[in-house]
């Protein structure tokens, strides 16, 4: 099993979710996060006092899927979240040791 973790632009979330459901992905976890990369933050000015916020708001999407599906998941996120501009985000793929469905106690890929 793989954990696909994608940091994307907030307004791309719907596109990514649609692309992934069409692949048959049955669930995902989404969180609002902040961070920075190459994209520079905004400058805020309050009565002349300038604050440069270097943390940019992003959305983190986490999906666990079986090994075979992982490359297609990565590919569809990469396409759906791409706006061609700096700050589109990153995708990370990690190995997952175990998965358990809490209600039934099922383990492994059947728990996904």
């Amino acid at each position, binding site marked *: 099993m793989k954990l696909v973790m994608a940091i994307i632009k907030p307004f791309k979330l719907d596109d990514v979710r649609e692309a992934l459901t069409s692949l048959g992905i049955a669930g995902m976890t989404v969180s609002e996060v902040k961070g920075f990369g190459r994209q520079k933050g905004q400058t*805020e*000015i*309050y*009565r*002349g*006092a300038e*604050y440069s*916020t270097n943390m940019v708001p992003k959305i983190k999407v986490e999906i666990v899927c079986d090994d075979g599906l992982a490359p297609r998941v990565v590919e569809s996120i990469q396409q759906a979240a791409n706006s061609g501009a700096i700050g589109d985000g990153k995708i990370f793929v990690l190995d997952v040791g175990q998965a358990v469905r809490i209600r039934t106690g099922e383990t492994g890929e059947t728990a996904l």
Partner: protein
Amino acid sequence: MTLTRKICGLAGALVAGLAIAHPAFAADMVKAPDAAAMAGMVNKGDVAWMLVCSALVLMMSIPGLALFYGGLVRSKNMLSVCMQVFMIVSVAGLMWCSWGYSIAFTSGGDNHFFGGLSKAFLKGVDGTTMGATFSNNLYLPELVFVVFQMTFAMITPALIVGAFAERIKFSSLMVFVVLWSTFIYYPMAHMVWYWAGPDFLADAPTDAGLLWSWGALDFAGGTVVHINAGIAGLVGAIMIGKRIGYPKEPMPPHSLVMTMIGASLLWVGWFGFNAGSNLEANGVTGVAFINTMVATCAAAVSWALIEQFHHGKASMLGAASGAVAGLVAITPAAGYAAPMTSIVLGFVVSPICYLFVAKVKGMLGYDDSLDVFGVHCIGGIVGAIATGIVAAPSLGGQGVFDYTVFPAAFHPEAYDIGAQVFIQVKAVLFTLVWSGVGSAILFFIIDKTMGLRVPADDEQQGLDLTSHGERAYNS
């Protein structure tokens, strides 16, 4: 009923109703009417209007000022600012009835700095006693005047808290407000606004406050309210010291929506403040009303334009700040200017205030958290001095009435802009020294006895939790 004779009018100004300017009525005028005669010289329209104005000015403080300031602090200090304003309003109301009104609005005899205690605890003031207006033989029930002026005594100390928001010790602040109102505000109100009244001044030409006697014009409180509070705030901000982390750490406003709501409530309430300061519902009231409206529009536009040119973006906070600067600037001039000169005044005040909040504050390094000095004191100074110019009848202004004769006379051709501006400057300097030095003494005493500032831990955790045991937002 001799107590009722000498009630001041507001505005040190010599604005009178149409009746006195009309010779046909002059013959019927009663000089120095007694209480029974005064009772027949009340206009129900004036009474209704002044009661509405009193409620409007209360709305400026709560929730207007509380939200305007509250939105500008960090969320951990939101309730502390709201509570400070709310408690100051409540305490100021009690003090006003107890001794404030008497100190401000009874005759001081040969002393022109403050009045006496003859009306302390509203002794002798009831539903039948009368207060003067700006027209001969026209009176306002005294309790209506008491409550209208009370709302001014409430908002003025509340304005100060913005200068040292996010670090002041609550109990010390309340003690400061009691002392400051008593020793700075009430005498200041007396000096600018106390006079014997249009039916009595001719017989007692020296029975007026110090600045009133100079001929200083302050229609609704440029000196008494805004310069007075603004300089007290600056002195407080310097003596209490900067917030921890200022100016290195970002301290962005937590809700500019609240600030916009607060500024808008201030704008609406300010009609009670400025137009109400005419004490009557007549043509001059209308002048003060429209001047307040258009000066504010102009100042909001000019602040937005400066930001557009300076930063490439016009901000909501800038528009709200500009509106308040415009309201402050038109306050002393409201009943004297004409609409078009008010617009010029509005356009001029924003760049000057902007310079102070965006440049001078940073250069000098004081931490006036919410720009009480930069907006209220500077805006008040601009307005107070400009009043000498815009009041000129040659510029469409309303001019001044001569109350040393009975009935009051009006000589528009005698108005001297240079001389009036000189008096205005003198009044501004006097106010800066009176409130600046007085406030410094009070802050010093409180600092040495109670301490002015919360402990560093409390400041970092936020005053809502550490001073008041509650949180503004629980989610």
